[in-house]
């Protein structure tokens, strides 16, 4: 499904249920527009297993076919170890899909909601980051799964 390098990503703008979880992170997530989630498809250029956040850098094409390098913020090493991630599960060159809440200021960066890896495995981003409100085809998830949020 994402075997072609630099496959055109679909910018799927979907209004989702606002999520108001407990503040429990390195910083407030409010610079990210949680109500507008998009699906990015592209090639990993960097996977930084670091604190205070893990970052994926992803080359993804916009609707005009222009490649942008997106910065995708993930939770942190200790949260994601606890929910089943592994430090080496993503590598440069991997073709992945990522549902993100983009920055409000328009810069190419977003907060990860859910990721699908080349082998089809899917992972959420821990409770504090909030759940995906769309699926990987961009369809809204009514009464969205809260990504493990209790």
């Amino acid at each position, binding site marked *: 499904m994402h075997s072609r390098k630099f496959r055109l990503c679909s910018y799927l703008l979907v209004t989702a249920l606002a999520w108001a*979880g*407990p503040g*429990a*992170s*390195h*910083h*407030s997530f*409010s*610079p*990210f*527009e949680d109500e507008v989630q998009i699906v990015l498809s592209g090639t990993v250029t960097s996977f*930084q297993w*670091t*604190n*205070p*956040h893990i*970052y994926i850098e992803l080359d993804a094409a916009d609707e005009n076919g222009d490649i942008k390098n997106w*910065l995708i*913020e993930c*939770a*942190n*090493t*200790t*949260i*994601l*170890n*606890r*929910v089943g991630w592994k430090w080496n599960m993503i590598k440069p060159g991997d073709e992945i899909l990522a549902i993100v809440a983009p*920055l*409000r200021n328009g*810069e*190419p*960066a977003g907060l990860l909601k859910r990721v699908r890896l080349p082998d089809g495995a899917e992972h*959420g981003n*821990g*409770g*504090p980051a909030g759940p995906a409100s769309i699926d990987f085809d961009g369809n809204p998830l009514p009464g969205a799964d809260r*990504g*493990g*949020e*209790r």
Partner: protein
Amino acid sequence: MPKSVTPRVVAMIALLAAPAMFAQETSQLRGLNGSWERWPSRSAGLGSDAAPPPVDLNIAPIPEPPLRPEYLDDWRAERAEIQRLTEQGLPPANNYSACIGDGMPAMMQGMFPMEVLETPGQITIIQEAYNQVRRIYFDDELPPAEDAEPRFAGHSVGRWEGDTLVVDTVGVKDYVEFQNVPHSHLMRINERLRLVGDDYMVNEVTIVDPEFLTAPWTWTWAYLRWPEYKIQEYICENNRYFRDPELGYQRLRVD
């Protein structure tokens, strides 16, 4: 008394024995050892994700601080402004966004699990977030608050009152604020920690500050035991957040 056992020898034996007796007193394990997650504020990935044993701890929300009137209005205005800006997507920069840990007392309800280590004469508490460490000494005296070197965790001494661990802390840095509440160098934090059954621990926290507070500020925090958890490393090595020079909010460096 035989001549060989002189008063000097007796005194030496007493001197040698006293620390050992004292250490025995303070090193007695009281069941706090191990990993704990905060309770009841939980979310996937913050803690164990396990169904907790039933308990009724009656943990109430933290009350408004009894600040002196000349500070209370400013504090309320600051809190409201932080909330307003955060809702607009412009949360003001703070210690966290600069990769600076909680310090006391907030590190006692840090976002990640904490580890309690009971050793002779000392209890050490490690909060996973920011690798924060505090050391509570039993064979020590608290420095006078006005003379205590300012630190994030301050200086702490402990004692047992029955099954309750009582800890007093002074010397917290001025800009280490809990819930944006200002404090002076005379602030003192008193904690009373005790087990509730085998699985829970509560911490009654009381803050006094003659310069800023009109009365003690008190609340209770709780913890759920997580015996099998091993605290992880947390070094803030890749902080992409900075204070926006114009708007002052927590801005992400994207390039």
